């Protein structure tokens, strides 16, 4: 029992330490995400794979039938590149504007996340880099779902 308590407190201490480390240099870490995603070219391939998985997914592919898919690919790539700390500038519309009228659900959002996870698995992107990208995208949920 005491050993379990020790385990718990050890985990807590270790997490506290790790959180401090994470807080030290956010920009350097974001930049390394850009690197981990394979820089501009890797991100473009990743976004292509993502859209291919989206096209296969019956839960959400109907949202993507009548759109300019090349523009979407380009804007998505720019956005992810910029988010990941790369030398890109996102030139598309904001998230609320681009998803208004679609009435997207939580299921839709999670389906897109799953497509992204599969695409990242295929590109052998590390668990840590996958998590960091997802953590940057999750806060957009409120701007995208239910509009």
């Amino acid at each position: 029992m005491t050993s379990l308590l020790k385990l718990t407190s050890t985990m807590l201490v270790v997490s506290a330490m790790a959180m401090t480390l994470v807080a030290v240099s956010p920009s350097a870490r974001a930049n390394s995400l850009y690197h981990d995603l394979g820089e501009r070219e890797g991100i473009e391939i990743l976004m292509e794979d993502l859209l291919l998985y989206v096209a296969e997914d019956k839960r959400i592919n109907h949202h993507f039938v009548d759109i300019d898919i090349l523009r979407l690919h380009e804007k998505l790539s720019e956005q992810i590149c910029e988010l990941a700390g790369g030398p890109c500038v996102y030139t598309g519309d904001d998230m609320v504007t681009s998803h208004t009228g679609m009435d997207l659900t939580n299921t839709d959002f999670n389906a897109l996340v799953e497509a992204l996870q599969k695409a990242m698995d295929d590109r052998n992107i590390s668990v840590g880099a996958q998590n960091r990208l997802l953590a940057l995208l999750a806060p957009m949920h409120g701007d995208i779902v239910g509009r």
Partner: protein
Amino acid sequence: MDGQIQIGMRLWLGVVGVAASLLLLAPAEAASGRLLATGGATSIEGAAGGGLVPWAVISGYTEDDQFGGTVTLSRAQVDDYRLDVTAAAFSYGNRFEFSVAQQMFTLENLGAELRQQVIGAKYKVAGDLIYGNIPQISVGGMYKRNTRYDLPQAVGSERDSDWEAYVAVSRAWLAGPFDRTWLANATIRSTRANQTGLLGYGGDLNDSHELQLEAALGMFLHRSLAVGVEYRQKPDNLSFAREQDWMSAFVAWFPSKHVALVGAYVDLGEIAGARNQTGYYLSLQASF
């Protein structure tokens, strides 16, 4: 007494029957709107959670207006006792969960057994496990009854059935320490159950509901494999034997949205006079 057991059995079969037919009604495709592992596993009392603790998460993978369910078999084997649990849960959206659990607790040295049924409901009142700024907050209730009451009565239990209520808060951090996804849960339960109710409810030392704290902390090594610890505070109502808090260290594997497998080391402390009850816990959950 016999009549009571029969009514209990019929009630139980009815509940299981309803749960089973709801599961059959739920189309396999419908219940997949949430991300892997976000329904947790099935706790020993049937509610979605870890192993020992009900969490704020809703069972299975239902989101929006989907419905679905889970069925689970679990076993805890410690030095002198074994707990076997059969459980089923039905869920609607990422909002509501209804669960049933049948527990059999074998006292291996005495050749005796204890039996408890638990019917539970959980409702998510606010927030979300992953999205937005508010953690997922759920309220739940459990109705528990002993379907064999000879031993609980003999050791001083005050009644053979009781209610419990709890509030649970769960939150995941997608990229927490070590860039891993972490999940934390805290639950406050109002209870007067002896050994979670296996030894009845209330006793000579205390016969009123008390607030108990339960907690869990887990880390996902990757999105289908998590390790963590759980802690469950328990009341100490009976003078015949001391009751202690429970703890576990677990590994949970989610090979797909249809299966979850949990293995754990459990420390159940002193039970009915037998000290240092430690051992393993295994749980297999299927989701529809």
